[in-house]
């Protein structure tokens, strides 16, 4: 584990370099990149994904995966839109969205933890199911008349600084998740579950409840992301947040979390989120369309995994040669 910890520290240093490189790339790509208004848009645009990346880190550390995050976010957006259509004030619609998201996450968690189904197929199924329910509820319609204060949550900034409000929401959640993951019994139990589920179970860790909890957290954070995203876009539709899973998983993996579970850190994920945010912003300024930007996201995901896979391969061979005991 310490060897893995050493590797992670070096990876986070590398991420800082990537962040600097992303800034350099952005500055070269466009003269507007370094403007305060652009920085705040870049950050605000990445916040919904960032918020979902927090519980996704926990899910992947457990050795599971959640591909349905985009659909849960869309479902929450649709639920809130339906509430608004029926005349409910936005203040009442938001708790409804939160409840819907948490329930959706609990369903995922129950299927994985208690029915024992693999998270891959459960979340593929709920990806379709939740998106379908959102479409049934909202069909082709969209809601876009949100109050001023709501929209400022999406892309409004604090005073004259380039700091968007949603960054504050994210910061609070980040601290909560980071403290949970690295500082509490339950959080560290997730690393044990990801490393060796049976051993964790025999150590007295309640594996089922932990897994249920991380999926529920994923659903709840999708609801928060739905609020921020609809505020940012000033629109709530049934196809909101389609394809959210890819950039979120890329951010988590780029942050140094092992895709097989058992190791990673919130700090790395934080850095990775910002690297991706600025790279995508720079690409957008350079004229690359959003549908084409996913090529870069996919390539980053593959490159990171190939890199980690290669280092694992090299260490395994080195371990055999030097007869050292390995962490994995």
């Amino acid at each position, binding site marked *: 584990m310490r060897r893995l910890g050493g590797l992670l520290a070096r990876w986070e240093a590398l991420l800082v370099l990537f962040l600097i490189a992303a800034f350099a790339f952005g500055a070269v790509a466009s003269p507007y990149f370094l403007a305060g208004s652009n920085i705040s848009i870049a950050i605000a645009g990445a916040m919904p994904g960032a918020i979902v990346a927090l519980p996704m880190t926990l899910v992947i550390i457990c050795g599971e995966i959640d591909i349905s995050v985009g659909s849960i976010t869309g479902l929450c957006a649709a639920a809130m839109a339906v509430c608004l259509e029926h005349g409910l004030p936005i203040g009442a619609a938001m708790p409804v969205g939160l409840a819907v998201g948490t329930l959706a996450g609990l369903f995922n968690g129950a299927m994985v933890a208690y029915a024992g189904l693999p998270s891959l197929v459960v979340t593929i199924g709920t990806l379709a199911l939740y998106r*379908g329910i959102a479409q049934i509820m909202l069909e082709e319609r969209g809601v876009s008349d949100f109050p001023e204060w709501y929209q400022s949550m999406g892309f409004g900034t604090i005073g004259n600084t380039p700091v968007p409000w949603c960054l504050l929401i994210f910061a609070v959640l980040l601290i909560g998740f980071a403290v949970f993951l690295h500082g509490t019994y339950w959080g560290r139990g997730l690393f044990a579950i990801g490393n060796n589920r049976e051993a964790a179970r025999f150590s007295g860790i309640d594996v089922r409840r932990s897994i249920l909890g991380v999926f529920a957290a994923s659903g709840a954070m999708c609801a928060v992301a739905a609020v921020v995203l609809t505020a940012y876009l000033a629109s709530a539709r049934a196809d909101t947040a389609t394809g959210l899973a890819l950039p979120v998983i890329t951010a988590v993996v780029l942050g140094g979390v092992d895709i097989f579970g058992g190791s990673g850190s919130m700090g790395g994920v934080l850095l990775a989120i910002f690297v991706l945010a600025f790279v995508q912003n720079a690409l957008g300024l350079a004229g690359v369309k959003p549908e084409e930007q996913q090529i870069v996201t*996919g390539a980053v995901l593959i490159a990171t995994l190939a890199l980690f896979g290669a280092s694992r391969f090299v260490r395994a061979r080195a371990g055999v040669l030097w007869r050292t005991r390995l962490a994995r």
Partner: protein
Amino acid sequence: MSASGTAGLASQGFAAESALARLRRVRELGLVLALLLICLCVTLRAPRFLNGANLEQVALSATLVCIVSLGQALVIIARQIDLSVGAMVAISAFATADWLEHFPKTRIVFALLFGMGVGGALGAGNALLVAVARIPAIVATLATLAIYRGAAIALAGGRQISATVLPGDYQHLAQIHVADAPLLVWIAVLLTLLFGWAARYTRTGRNLYALGSSPESARLAGINEPGHLAFVFILSGLLCGLVGVLWGARFGTVDAVIAPDLHLQSISAVVVGGVSIFGGSGSVYGAALGAVIFAVLQNGVELFGINQFWLEAVIGAAILGTVLLYTVLARRAERAEREQSRSGLGR
């Protein structure tokens, strides 16, 4: 089908079938019964269903998903998954249509080979990531899904190629009838029979089941894991390439955003068709039946006048429901088998 589960009983000299083998036979029969039942329900509510022209439409709409599901079935049997199928179909469809637009004198055979070549190359990309770089298939194909789709969009540049600019015999591909059934349906049926036979009676096919059943044991038995994984992903790509070429013929227009949910449709067809998501069991015939079931369901939704938006939710519920059902049944069968073997040893 899978070799697991029967070896232990052979050592006890049981002549009777194991509980798991019985489960598998029930699965295929159950699918045919389910299909007939659904057809019956749809006919009762909307007799137009049995109309010759309607049945032909159902068969045609099942065809393309069925062919992709054949590849997806083998991938899932090998304990992998391929999420990039829709994007691979889109690229090969657009590339082939583009080629035919610029070289209308091309013979159809060469167009098919070209499309399959494009698909195979894309599948080789997946194969490289999974078999060589050892990236888990779920994230590898999630990434290639994005890369290939983005590439398709960049390639197309917003263009749509409609059948009017394509050579006549290309469009006729979708209209040729052999013995009253469309050519496309014959292609799908023949491919299903071919792959169904090959999965069971060739060494490569059985190796895929072994890999899916227990990769460790398969490796120790000397099965070339990277080779077989590469094979199955390239095969999936080839089939997607074929479907890409047929897509333009069937639907008339091709652009970069076709087949957006093909990965969901093919996975649900495969899962409903009885292929275990854990790998190692199930059959290609089941996947084909699953594709037909979904085509019938979709047709039913259209005939009943139900909102089309229900379809995606139905697909999701079907995936979850069948996986849950099969897992519960499989666990019960395993427990029964364990009890059988325990009592057989006289404890």
